[in-house]
């Protein structure tokens, strides 16, 4: 502090480049070893945390939006679809948790698109680090948002009367499955974030994908009430497997079939869209 004061004097706003000061930072030092893939990804994840710290408004979509979803659908459908909102909630809460969190995954694509638009990815892409690190780190940050959203929804549910039979472990397992799937599903949006021109078109495409995917599932009602052709779609929908697996976990049961399907879908999303994403990322 005292050093800075003596060199800059009374007028700190005028910067005069000094050859000596620049010489100290320009002396070529030793090149440190390249960070590991994990270290680089975690560092990019740290960037995501810093962004949350500086722009806390961005947490609106993982707090307010899920609360509104839970309240709206519980009281909208609760009376009609079950005897009371409280009964409906036992069936519905895992489903709405899945819907909300999966919908939030699209912000991965929007965020990436904005970053690229601003130019910061030009810097990242010229760094000699593990290539997917910038994107993996970004999704690490988003995973934190998914966990936060899930916890917010769970809390609202508990207040409204959701009583999961699976207890703490069951609920944690359910949220764990959801986070695994959402991490994998985020790669769909990194791909669209890279391919599409604007933030708006990313939003548009994600809505087009997410609405049918979440609504044409077992989230809101039992598929047995639907016409046959729709049942076929619903059965194949990964969201259906996810919701079934999460419901089972939270109820303290196990559903190996659906859990296996959901993990297969997750692996598929990472392999297919992760590869497509990296292909686009490297080839601009």
């Amino acid at each position, binding site marked *: 502090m005292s050093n*800075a004061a003596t060199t800059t004097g009374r007028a700190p706003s005028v910067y*005069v480049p000094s050859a000596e000061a620049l010489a100290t*930072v*320009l002396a*070529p030092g030793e090149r440190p070893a390249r960070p590991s893939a994990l270290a680089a990804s975690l560092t990019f994840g740290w960037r995501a945390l810093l962004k949350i710290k500086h722009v806390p408004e961005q947490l609106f979509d993982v707090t307010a939006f899920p609360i509104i979803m839970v309240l709206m659908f519980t009281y909208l459908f609760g009376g009609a679809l079950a005897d009371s909102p409280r009964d409906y909630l036992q069936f519905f809460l895992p489903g709405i948790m899945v819907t909300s969190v999966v919908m939030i995954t699209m912000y991965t694509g929007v965020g990436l698109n904005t970053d690229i638009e601003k*130019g910061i990815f030009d*810097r990242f892409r010229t760094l*000699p680090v593990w290539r997917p690190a910038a994107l993996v780190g970004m999704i690490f940050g988003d995973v934190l948002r998914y966990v936060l959203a899930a916890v917010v929804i769970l809390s609202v549910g508990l207040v409204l009367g959701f009583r999961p039979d699976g207890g703490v472990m069951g609920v944690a397992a359910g949220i764990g499955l959801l986070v695994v799937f959402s991490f994998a599903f985020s790669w769909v949006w990194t791909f669209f974030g890279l391919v599409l021109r604007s933030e708006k078109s990313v939003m548009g495409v994600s809505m087009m994908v997410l609405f049918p995917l979440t609504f044409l599932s077992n989230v809101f009602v039992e598929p047995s009430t639907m016409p046959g052709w729709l049942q076929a779609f619903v059965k194949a929908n990964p969201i259906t497997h996810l919701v079934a697996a999460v419901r089972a976990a939270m109820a303290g049961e196990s559903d190996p079939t659906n859990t296996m399907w959901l993990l297969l879908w997750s692996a598929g999303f990472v392999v297919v869209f992760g590869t497509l994403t990296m292909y686009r990322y490297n080839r*601009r």
Partner: protein
Amino acid sequence: MSKRTTGPAIEAEGLTRSFGETRALAGMDLQVPAGTVYGLLGPNGAGKTTAVRVLATLLRPDGGRARVFGHDVVAEADKVRARVSLTGQYASVDEDLTGVENLVLLARLLGLRKPAARERADQLLAAFGLTEAGGRQVKKYSGGMRRRIDIAASILNTPDLLFLDEPTTGLDPRSRNQVWEIVRAVVSHGTTVLLTTQYLDEADQLAGRIAVVDHGRVIAEGTPGELKSSVGSGTVHLRLRDAAQRPDAEKVLQAALGVPVQLEADPLALTARVGGEGNDLAASEQAARALADLTRAGIVVDDFSLGQPSLDEVFLALTDHPAVPADERDEQLEAAR
């Protein structure tokens, strides 16, 4: 350790790259010697940014090849990345983060551990006069401070080759001088700098060699002195009192300077290049003689100036067309890639 490399820093042959209908690079050749500042001079849309992006491994060329310190920019991109750094025209640090956070983030990505990264960040902030601003978000910085943090981020690992894409566009004169000082310091420590600019005087001030770029091609190359002697080292601007005397003035000037005289849109104004090839006299001497001839001919000159040729004039001399910025759309398209 001022010389880290022998051989050229950049060798590019016949680089091409198109964006849809637009040919951003149309067979660009470049030879950039190591340890110098090399200027790419040209108007908007000439292909400067595309060239930098190809050389910095951000963009694949459609054709041709380029090597940076002997490594192919496509096949050995990782080896190239380990030795270069880019300060783009747009945000090259995260505006939401503070100056310190940005530098620590990049230092850690380059492999420094946390305490060392923090120390390096503080050193850089001090050297770039940003110690006080270090804790503030970059979006709150002034234009000059922005550029400084951009450049500080680029020299975190003292790269062997630094790309500066229009580093002073939009800066006030003082901030521009600061950037120039920094560039001089960077190159004096052995880093090669490839600088793109729209300003002839900037290239003249900083660069050891300049390539003039137009429509994705290098149309002239050499030291600033060589370029200026082919273009004319200066331009005489005249304003007459009486527009009726302009035809006479044109004749007198043409006779005195031996070059074509340009009649400006302003009916009182004339422009001519001086100090070009095939004239042994210095620009100032030619101009003085021309002025004397005009006085003898009874032509009243209200305003007289001798200046460096502008980029427009360089272009006119080299291409017979002025440096009209290419279609704005093309530039935006280029930026979006």
